[in-house]
């Protein structure tokens, strides 16, 4: 710290929208393993961990997806207050599992969840926060990877654009020398999903479900063919691709439809 004596800790706030708050729990966890982070930042709002609130902050981490009209106003306030807004986790980054509901008619979904009180709630299609406000970066995953969180904070403090891998999980999985799950009779979305989690699911024998979202330019047609060759029906393939990526794949579909019409 010696040469950075004049360093002023940036004020950091955490906010949550529709989510399980598991990513904020992971942040809390990472503060325990990397307490030196608190020498470098000043946390001014973090409902998961403290009572204080603040209207003054430079970096906002936002967990959760936008699922109500009221969320939009709050997101815009955060955007206008913070210099940097970072989407924290799959819900904020991709819409997350909340976006599964987008696949069905909204009244049906609301009736399923809220029964005869459905009219009381103004919930609408779930979207990533980037659909409402500009963001400066994102930390993918469900939940986020604690090491990646630390790395991103470091890069922000150094004034760098956070580097998030944009290559497929298979790259990372092979570095771990995992036997490909397809060779073990299982299926996995690794070839089209963003790496960076350390291939944690395949390492423990479970196929990737895509919580970190699609890589740029995924070969979805080829992936679907592989999944079908390995025994999945058309419906199962669609379900597989929409657990975490319903919003993303819907976007790709409408793009493709737009291109053909």
């Amino acid at each position, binding site marked *: 710290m010696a040469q950075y004596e004049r360093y002023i800790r940036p004020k950091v706030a955490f906010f949550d929208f529709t989510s399980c708050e598991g990513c904020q729990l992971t942040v809390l966890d990472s503060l325990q393993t990397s307490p030196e982070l608190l020498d470098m930042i000043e946390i001014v709002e973090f409902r998961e961990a403290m009572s204080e609130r603040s209207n003054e902050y430079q970096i906002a981490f936002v967990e959760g997806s936008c699922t109500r009209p009221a969320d939009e106003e709050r997101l815009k306030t955060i955007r206008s207050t913070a210099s940097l807004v970072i989407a924290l986790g799959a819900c904020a980054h991709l819409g997350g599992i909340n976006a599964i509901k987008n696949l069905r008619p909204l009244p049906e979904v609301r009736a399923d969840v809220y029964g005869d009180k459905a009219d009381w709630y103004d919930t609408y299609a779930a979207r990533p926060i980037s659909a409402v406000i500009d963001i400066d970066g994102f930390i993918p995953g469900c939940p986020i990877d604690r090491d990646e969180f630390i790395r991103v904070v*470091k890069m922000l403090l150094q004034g760098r654009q956070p580097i998030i891998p944009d290559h497929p999980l298979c790259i990372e999985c*092979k*570095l771990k020398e*995992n036997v*490909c799950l397809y*060779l073990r009779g299982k299926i996995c979305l690794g070839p089209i999903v963003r790496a960076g989690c350390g291939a944690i699911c395949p390492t423990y024998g479970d196929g990737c479900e895509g919580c970190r979202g699609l890589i740029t*330019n995924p070969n979805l047609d080829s992936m679907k063919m592989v999944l079908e060759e390995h025994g999945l029906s058309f419906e199962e393939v669609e379900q597989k691709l929409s657990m975490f990526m319903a919003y993303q794949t819907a976007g790709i579909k409408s793009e493709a439809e737009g291109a053909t019409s």
Partner: protein
Amino acid sequence: MSYKIMPKSALNDWVQHLRQKFTIVAPKPKHGQFVFGEVTDASEFALDYPSTVLPPKKYLVPTQEELLSYSLDGSHFEMRTEPVPTVVLGVHTCDLHGIKLLDRIFSQGYTDTHYKTRRNSLYLVSYECFEPCTEHSFCRSMGTLSATDTFDLHIINLGEDFAFEIGTQKGESLLEGFQSIFNVTEVDIERINTVHQEKWQRFPYRLDFDVTELAELLTNSYTSTYWDELGDICLGCGMCTQVCPTCYCFDIHDEVDLTLDGGHRVRTWDSCQIRMFATVAGGHNFRAEQAARQRHRFMRKGKYQEDAYGLVGCTGCGRCAQACLVDITPVKTFNELYKRRNNIAEKETEAK
């Protein structure tokens, strides 16, 4: 060429003997396949194994390697190379050829200190293959079915005994001081010759042409539409390059400490199959399509590496073929290009 004989029953004693001075790595079972990993007992590994997920190149170019550490004020700068003397047991001959190529790549022109230091502390004990290791291997076509001069010791399985071919003084030193090593007899030499002669018929040629024609074939196929066909089905997952014994591309990045006092420079494996590989400043990508990336990969394996280093870049190990989920394989690709070129040549002849 000098040989020594060791009864198979002495294998574990030899492993224990080596462990006094070395870390031992060998093929260990993992989920129905094998991976090179540290062993402490002969019961933990198999010398007759099909293939490994990653080739032994990981001991020369680790998947992630700290190259140096530094302080941000410039007062401290330290290169990190402290490899542990390691014996790799059971290297297949294809992988020996792979390491021979890596040796040239990392020493020609600029010598890579980290590679060289690791290489010097690595003792390669290879193992003669008597059967094709997997349905995907095509070592005979690539000329890698025999040991090359890269090994320190080469093991030939003679049934009750192992014969050791001694390649270097490093290899010889692995047998020094071990009791159960015997001089070779004329009978042993005959047995060695017999197993060598008998093995060849078990390995089919899988390329439809001679490997010496490969580089020219690729040169003439540069504009083939086949690359677009590969590009359409390729997932771009990059497994092919990760498991390849001669792919060595890497990326280097700095990990600066949270306190901004210092940092580490880290080298990690990279892959020409991923979109960002050829993306440069300004976002321009000179291999933007997957077809161009696949073509680049096969040009490297069949031509570029040979042009630059005098050795074919593909060893025929079959790892990439086994890894590929959409069945893009060197054998299929090279044979298909050969067939198409011949078709074109025939049509040209007919036209005349």
